């Protein structure tokens, strides 16, 4: 087995007395689609922010793409992509301008940016919209664009925080196709979601309850273990006992 791209050991984040993430330990293998599930307030986003180098852990260890989350956050940032819950491309820039900007920030060469943006626009079928302001696109397109921009620099891992919130089932399916393509190219996918059908698309999933990881396995194995017909049931059995929720 290759060295894991994400390794955590008792990773913990406290805000005052509140333990948002409590000693979580897991590995993610290269090329894997790793589903990171949990009820609202379970601590998913906090954990993800620590792994992206946006938040310094309170205790425990973690390495992302081989770099330490305490000291090497800048190296981590070179090797990851990130797409947050809040849509975060610039709405007052056009599609092309956004691609150019983020490509430039990651230090891609001009020629590289040009070929990549052409490929990206072709893949998403945005030829007619390339010069339109991102703010004027429908949400589903924005999400797909946001994901594509997030992996423009071919990161080792891409973190997706509830990427398909609020979009229709067809768009969600298209979005997952993009994810599969990326995984096929060797990019590790780390994704949080509330849709249990999406959880089934993952290679492995972990389920967080009250800041702790309560279950971690393939969807198949989890269903067997909890004797459940669907992931919905698995999730329900675990999350029912949660003390904190919104």
């Amino acid at each position: 087995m290759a060295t894991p791209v994400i390794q955590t050991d008792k990773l913990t984040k406290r805000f005052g007395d509140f333990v948002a993430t409590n000693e979580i330990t897991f590995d993610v293998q290269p090329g894997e689609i790793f589903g990171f599930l949990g009820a609202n307030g379970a601590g998913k986003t906090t954990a993800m922010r620590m792994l992206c180098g946006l938040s310094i852990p309170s205790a425990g260890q973690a390495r992302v793409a081989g770099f330490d989350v305490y000291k090497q956050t800048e190296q981590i940032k070179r090797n990851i992509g990130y797409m947050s819950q809040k849509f975060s491309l610039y709405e007052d820039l056009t599609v092309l301008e956004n691609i150019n900007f983020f490509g430039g920030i990651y230090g891609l060469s001009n020629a590289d940016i040009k070929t990549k943006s052409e490929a990206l626009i072709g893949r998403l079928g945005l030829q007619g919209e390339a010069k339109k302001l991102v703010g004027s696109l429908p949400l589903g397109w924005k999400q797909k664009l946001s994901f594509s921009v997030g992996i423009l620099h071919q990161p080792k891992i891409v973190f997706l925080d509830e990427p398909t919130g609020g979009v229709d089932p067809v768009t969600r399916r298209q979005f997952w196709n993009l994810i599969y393509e990326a995984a096929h190219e060797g990019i590790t996918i780390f994704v949080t979601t509330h849709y249990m059908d999406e959880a089934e698309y993952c290679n492995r999933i972990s389920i967080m309850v009250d800041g702790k990881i309560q279950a971690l396995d393939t969807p198949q194995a989890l269903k067997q273990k909890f004797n459940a017909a669907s992931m919905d049931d698995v999730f329900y059995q675990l999350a029912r006992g949660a003390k904190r929720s919104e």
Partner: protein
Amino acid sequence: MRTLRFLLQKEFKQIFRNRSILVMIVVMPVVQLILLPLAANYEVKNINLCVVDRDHSSTSQKLVGKIASSGYFKLTGNRATFKEAFPLMETDEADLILEIPAGFERNLVREDEQKIFVAVNAINGTKANLGGAYLASIIRDYNHDFRVQWIQPSAFNQNPVIDVSSSNWFNPLLNYRMFMVPGILAILVTMIGGFLSALNIVKEKEIGTIEQINVTPLRKHHFILGKLIPFWVLGNVVFTIGLVVSWIFYGIVPVGNLAVLYVFVGVYLLAVLGFGLLVSTFCDTQQQAMFIMYFFMMIFILMGGLFTSIDSMPGWAQMISRFNPVSYLITVMRMVVLKGSDLHDVRMHLGMVALFAVVLNGWAVLNYKKTS
């Protein structure tokens, strides 16, 4: 360097796409520079004067005539007694009441001395001070004329007389606008630079794009520079527009070298933008940033010597104003525009402002956290 280019491209595109900001940058300084000096006129003229002449002699009437024709005063009433005149002061219809007592002419000639009474509405200190001073000097002049008229000059010249000749340098006509316009331009440049830079980063925080920037390997100082440079350019544009407007509307052409002005404003803008960025690193919402900026701007402007002189402030306040970047710009603007001061003359000011620029921007970079 290359990353910086991408950042700048993005910022400029966003600025030019935002109509309301562009309007603010171009229209606001023009309108304000035209309007404000018209309104912000401290020149004390048209002081409302009410006369209580109880003498009704030719001497008293001539005195009143001389005051009325001086151009500083507007006669708003004649009343028979002070008691009748006072309500005019209560309603602000009279700023000054001049009371000439009965027997004024007779006593002046017979007893060589006569008092007259002046009551000043002193709620507005400046007006009271200057109004009183103008009136006193007119009375002094009249007194002199009166003497010359009644005595042979030779006899009068027995006493030593010191003749005082005064001159007003740099602004011989005492044009108040020459004083206000450079100051107001300084304020405009400060406001535009300060508010725009403070709101900008906070806006990215509010809409969440900063999160996306923070997961990129972008260096902190690149990011700050990317924010700084566009607004620095805009600040210079506003400044240039302001100079043109003050030339067209008020005929004010800097006596000193334009290059000195631009060098100083260039460094100054760095300081102000740095302050704006610093404020933005402390705030989460645009509303907060706006209020905090407003709070500091108010202190800076009030204590910057725009309306009242810094020399006259108490020691502790003068100490505070040393840490007020706005006061340096207002002073230097007036020095260069009106007095023609050169780079050597303003070296102290330049040094201080450069120091602010370094400290404020350094602080902003340190305080801008990519991680929490």
